[in-house]
Each structure stands twice: as C-alpha cells, then as structure tokens.
C-alpha cells in the first residue's frame, strides 16, 4: 500500500467534480466518452513539443485534476483539429484544450503579450497571424 508517493491512489473529490464540470461546460464535449485509445495523440503534429499527450490531458480532465492547468500542452496545441477527425467517439479534443486555456486565461493571465514582439516582427507578421495568436493565447 503506497503512502502517497505515487499518484496511484486517487479520490474523486467535489473540487475535482467541479473542475471537470467546468471543462465540460466550456468545451461542450462529453469527455467521459473517451476510452484512451490514443488516436488523437497519434495524429497530433505537435506531440514532440508537449509534456502531456492530448489523450493524457483528456484523462486528467476526466479525473477533474487541476494539475493539467500547469501543463504546456494546451498552449502548444495549434487547434488544427487533426484530433477531432480521428476520435472514434466523436470528441473534439481541440475544444477541450481551448476549455483548459480559457480556464487559465480567465484568471487575468495572458500567455502572450504584444510587448514580446520586436518592431521588426510587427512589421513582418501579417495581421492574420497576430490576431489569431492573441485570440487563442490572451484574455
């Protein structure tokens, strides 16, 4: 019997239920449908940069574990919807990623600020790039 050194024993508490409900509400997805087949992860073009696989992020969401809010993965996600077309249960994983991003962004946190860009970059980048980046990464 582990003394809490690994995450093997997990109790689903009310705060986990609340977080899970929030993710489901924001994404509009029924994440309980996921049976961890991994098809989404196999199609995702950016798993090389991620710390958690997309299917793992869904697992965290199913368990209502708020640690997923600290993962890099939702910010690496480029919302390309490759996961959506592959999911055999019809879940739009990109929606779930956005729900996690929104949960963080709505705490007055911006993942990206315009100050990070140099004047040269602002001159070079087309509007479409700057606008879409901000829609996904800022509040």
């Amino acid at each position, binding site marked *: 019997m582990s003394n809490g050194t690994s995450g093997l024993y997990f109790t689903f508490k009310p705060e986990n239920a609340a977080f899970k409900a929030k993710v489901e509400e924001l994404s509009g997805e029924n994440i309980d449908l996921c049976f961890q087949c991994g098809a989404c992860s196999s199609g995702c073009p950016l798993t090389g940069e991620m710390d958690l696989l997309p299917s793992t992020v869904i697992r965290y969401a199913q368990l209502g574990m708020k640690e997923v809010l600290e993962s890099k993965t939702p910010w690496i996600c480029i919302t390309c919807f490759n996961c959506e077309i592959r999911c055999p249960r019809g879940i739009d994983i990109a929606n779930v990623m956005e729900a996690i991003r929104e949960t963080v962004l709505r705490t007055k946190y911006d993942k990206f600020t*315009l100050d990070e*860009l140099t*004047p040269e970059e*602002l*001159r*070079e*980048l087309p*509007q479409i790039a*700057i*606008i879409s980046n*901000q829609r996904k990464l*800022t509040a």
Partner: protein
Amino acid sequence: MEENESEMVTIHVMGKKHEVPADLTIMKAMEYSGHQFRRGAGCRGGYCGACAAMYRVKGSYKLQGALACQKIVEDGMYIAQIPFSPAEKITYDLSELRPDANTFLEYYPEISRCLSCNTCTKACPQDIEVMDYVQASLRGDVEEAARLSFDCISCGLCAVRCPAEIVPYNVGQLARRLNSRYVIGPTEHVLKRVEEVEAGEFDADIDELKRLDRKTLQERYESREVKL
C-alpha cells in the same frame, strides 16, 4: 417683475444628489451645484475633448458618454466625469513611416485585438464610427480611417470602454497624420500662398489695415466677402 422660473431636475453628481435647472448643460449644472472645475473643463465649446463624462439615466442600464459642456441634463441622470484616460504617448517620426497596415501594427499592435464589438462607437459623444476607423487601420486603409475619424477630439471615452484595451483616438490620429502626409500630400494652395506672402505681395494691404481706426476696421470686417 416676474422671475423666469425654469423647471428643476434631479441629478446625481458622483453620487451626491442635486436639484438643478433643466436647461443647463452637465458642466453648468455641476457649477450651479457648487463644483469648481480644475480638470475636466477646457474650451466649453465641444471642441477640446477635456470634459468627457459618463452618465446613466434612472431606469435604464445604458451607460452613455457625453461632453459635459454640450450635453443638457436630464431628470434622474447619474453623472461621473472622466477627466483623463490613461494612455502612453507613443512617439514616431512621421517622415520615416509608410502608410500601410503594418505601421499601425508596429505602434499600436493592440488593434489586432479588436473584437468589432462597437462599444467604442456607442461611447463616442461625437457620433463617430470608431470601430470602423479602427478596422480600417487594421486593413491598412489610411484614407478611410482618416475620413471616419475626422471629428475626433480625443476625449478618451472610447479608450476607457474598449474591452480590447485599444486607444482608438491615438490610432485615428496616426491615420490622419499618415493620410495628410502620404496620401493627400502637400497642400499646394497653402504653399503657394506662403510664397506669395514671403514675396511681399500682401505687404501693402497689411500696412493699410494697420493704419485704420477701430471703427473702420470693424466696418470692413463685418462687410467682408467670404469666398468658399
């Protein structure tokens, strides 16, 4: 002699209730009720943008923007003055700029956050289509942005309300500057007139005017012909 008794209305200025004559502007009503303006008052003619104010009328949730020197009070008005809206003064050298979308993005990159919600237009006391000129700037349409923002007096109400934290009046000003410099170009007739003045073509007329007495000067002024 009968005293002209104007109808009185009830207003609240920054939370405090006052009874004021119904035909006064917000600015006059505030002075009537004992406020002394140290900030938030300027030309008193609807042109300088110093007296930006926000108000709600009893029974309506709508938050409205107005110029205190122009807007007549209404019964049940709840008023607050916005004497200043915080904005960085971004400096640029107009002669080094190009009239395109990326110029706006370089100095005011936050225009890329515009949601097209139209809140700025709703706040504007000059009835300017603020959202449209911000969008025109985002598209690089300098001429349209300049045309639409022409009446802007930089009162700041749009900037205070914008959810994307844009300062529209600064964007409009850049658009008008770029438009004048690069799209319209130098005003030939003004330059020509300056040349004429420097060549002394008007010296004799000016000397004559300087020697006239006040009465004749006034007559001359009142009967002048204005060519449009």
